[in-house]
């Protein structure tokens, strides 16, 4: 806790940092820059021109592209802005260019610091096939897998049949993938070909690399990841995050610490993560992801060389500002903290607020933010780029904001989250808050007994509760009075017939 707090007045780390992202993470990076006293530049596509980061950053520059995503992936435009505005470092956030080695190299050539690990680590960990071999080579456990050659028409069946450890279900993953993109579970040879085709197509589209690999899929395992911080010389860990509550390989609820680990298991998995990061000469914040089996075995999945969406749960438990640490390390400062000085306190949970119909197969939802009331209170953090009037489209990821709570115990954190979810009001776009509350209230979640298949296995129980008649009547009465037509009629009706309560406006 206190160990991470440095002098408020520091030598200038960078003159000016460009935030190469949007939404909640762009605003999160801006907060860290403000705290460190560094000037900021936001870049934005026209569709985001009214977003908070554009209004709050020191400078804001519009970027153009065929689509908003294309604009944020346009390395040339970003480099030009860096040079024009005398930017000496870029924070990429997550997604977009955050793990793009070509981007890091182009910045380096232009004399601009990439706030993240070195090129070697990005390249190594960005190639899932290479990184698995690297990790296995250093004696850490990896799951059974088969790499597929690029190109069409490869007969996969004999390869799978020849390896006794490769039994169905299997999962197809993109070598350049991550974050659940380009992944598909298959249960039989019949599904395999189509799954590989879809995965390769997604991989080509998002990562420009169609290589995929097949991995044994553990139907009942947890996804546990370890936060590490390295400065190129030393590496410390900041404990683990439990990320098993997923839909379509996308995390929905994360927490720290994991209810599955005892002290011995925690030490083993965290030390493995530190060992992997150290072997890679890692410098910056990073995350080592593991599969954790019911038998207590763990396997390396991948290492993410960026700040992760779910970093706030670690920040709340360890009292650390991970984004500020990334900036300091990128500026050449050393960690300045030993593993023995790192201490955790309490329990944190994060819920991802997504524009989706969670009760209808998580189909994406769109709309305009008509009204917004953010949750607040002790131990409540809301990382969001939301604003009233915002148009939520299919152009970006459905995650709109992150609600994070911290409390002394897991039980208290769950209860605090339920209250915060109830307090959060977003009208105009359907979001998943009621679904999230349903998960938190589920007995298995409360007991900490779940794996990555939890949401699928309990989908029948996690459906929309039908409202009590009294609740429905209250909603219909409120709807009637809120309805514009009623309001117009009320105004047109002369007194005393129109007097309803203390009607205003």
């Amino acid at each position: 806790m206190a160990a991470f707090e440095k002098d408020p007045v520091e030598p200038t780390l960078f003159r000016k940092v460009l935030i190469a992202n949007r939404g909640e993470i762009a605003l999160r990076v801006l907060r860290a820059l403000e705290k460190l006293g560094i000037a900021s530049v936001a870049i934005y596509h026209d569709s985001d021109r009214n977003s908070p980061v554009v209004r709050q950053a020191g400078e804001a520059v519009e970027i153009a592209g065929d689509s908003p995503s294309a604009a944020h992936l346009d390395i040339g435009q970003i480099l030009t802005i860096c040079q024009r505005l005398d930017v000496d470092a870029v924070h990429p956030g997550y997604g977009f260019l955050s793990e793009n080695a070509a981007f890091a190299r182009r910045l380096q050539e232009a004399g601009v610091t990439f706030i993240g690990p070195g090129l070697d680590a990005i390249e190594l960990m960005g190639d899932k096939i290479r990184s698995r071999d690297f990790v296995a080579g250093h004696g850490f456990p990896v799951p059974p897998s088969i790499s597929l050659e690029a190109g069409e028409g490869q007969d996969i069946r004999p390869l799978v049949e020849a390896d006794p450890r490769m039994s169905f279900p299997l999962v197809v993953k993109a070598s350049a993938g991550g974050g659940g993109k380009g992944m598909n579970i298959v249960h039989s040879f019949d599904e395999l070909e189509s799954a590989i085709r879809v995965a390769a197509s997604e991989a080509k589209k998002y990562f420009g690399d169609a290589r995929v690999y097949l991995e044994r899929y553990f139907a009942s395992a947890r996804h546990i990841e370890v936060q590490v911080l390295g400065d190129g010389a030393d590496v410390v860990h900041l404990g683990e995050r439990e990320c098993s509550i997923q839909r379509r390989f996308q995390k929905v609820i994360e927490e720290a610490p994991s209810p599955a680990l005892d002290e011995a298991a925690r030490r083993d998995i965290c030390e493995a993560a530190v060992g992997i990061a150290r072997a890679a000469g890692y410098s910056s914040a990073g995350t080592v992801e593991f599969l954790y089996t019911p038998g207590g075995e763990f396997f390396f999945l991948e290492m993410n060389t960026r700040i992760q969406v779910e970093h706030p749960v670690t920040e709340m438990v360890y009292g650390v500002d991970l984004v500020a640490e990334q900036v300091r390390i990128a500026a050449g400062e050393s960690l300045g903290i030993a593993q023995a000085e790192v201490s955790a306190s309490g329990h944190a949970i994060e819920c991802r607020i997504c524009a989706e119909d969670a009760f209808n197969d998580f189909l994406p939802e769109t709309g305009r933010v008509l009204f917004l009331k953010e949750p607040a209170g002790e131990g409540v953090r809301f990382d969001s780029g939301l604003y009233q009037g915002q148009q939520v489209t299919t152009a970006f990821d459905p995650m709109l904001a992150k609600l994070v709570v911290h409390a002394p115990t897991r039980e208290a954190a769950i209860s605090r989250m339920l209250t915060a979810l109830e307090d959060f009001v977003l009208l105009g776009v359907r979001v998943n808050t009621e679904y999230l509350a349903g998960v938190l209230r589920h007995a298995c979640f409360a007991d900490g007994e779940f794996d990555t298949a939890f949401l699928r296995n309990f989908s029948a129980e996690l459906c929309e509760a039908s409202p009590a008649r009294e609740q429905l009547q209250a909603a219909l009465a409120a709807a009637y009075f809120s309805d514009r037509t009623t309001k117009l009629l009320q105004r047109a009706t002369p007194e005393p017939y129109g007097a309803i309560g203390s009607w205003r406006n």
Partner: protein
Amino acid sequence: MQPRYVCDDKAHEVTPLHLGEATTLDIDGHLVDVSLRWRDEHEGELVINGSERRFYTAQDGNTLYLHLAGRTWIFQCEDEFAGAGDQGSSAGRIHAPMPGVVVELNVAPGDCVEPGQGLMLIESMKLQTEIRASIAGTVSAIGAEVGESFDKGAVLVDIEPPASTAPGA
């Protein structure tokens, strides 16, 4: 006037019976006493059957959003003159399950398809979904070409059942 509010495909009727300090509403055939105080344009307090509830509301066209006790309601407002608005959908007509864009198109008008056959690959918020044929028949229309975007509910593919089967009403 008899306003109607549709939620989850169910229509509810709300009829004001008595307007005064407290209003009596007939909600789906049940009489309920209600009074209401607005705090601002979006926030109100409702007293219904003696208990007080805070709510938040916003309206966009005929869609009314309401947040009450942790639950968000989305109502379609209709008046008594509005028709049901239902469009007859034939078994072979495939509607977009979500807004998105076509990334791959595997059939053309005139093609014969089998149930379950992959017709197109669509993408929405980085999620790819394969659209499959619902029935056997002949593709009569394609609603969106590769690269084109579409709204939720738009017709993506229309399949004409074989001539021996009478077309659905």
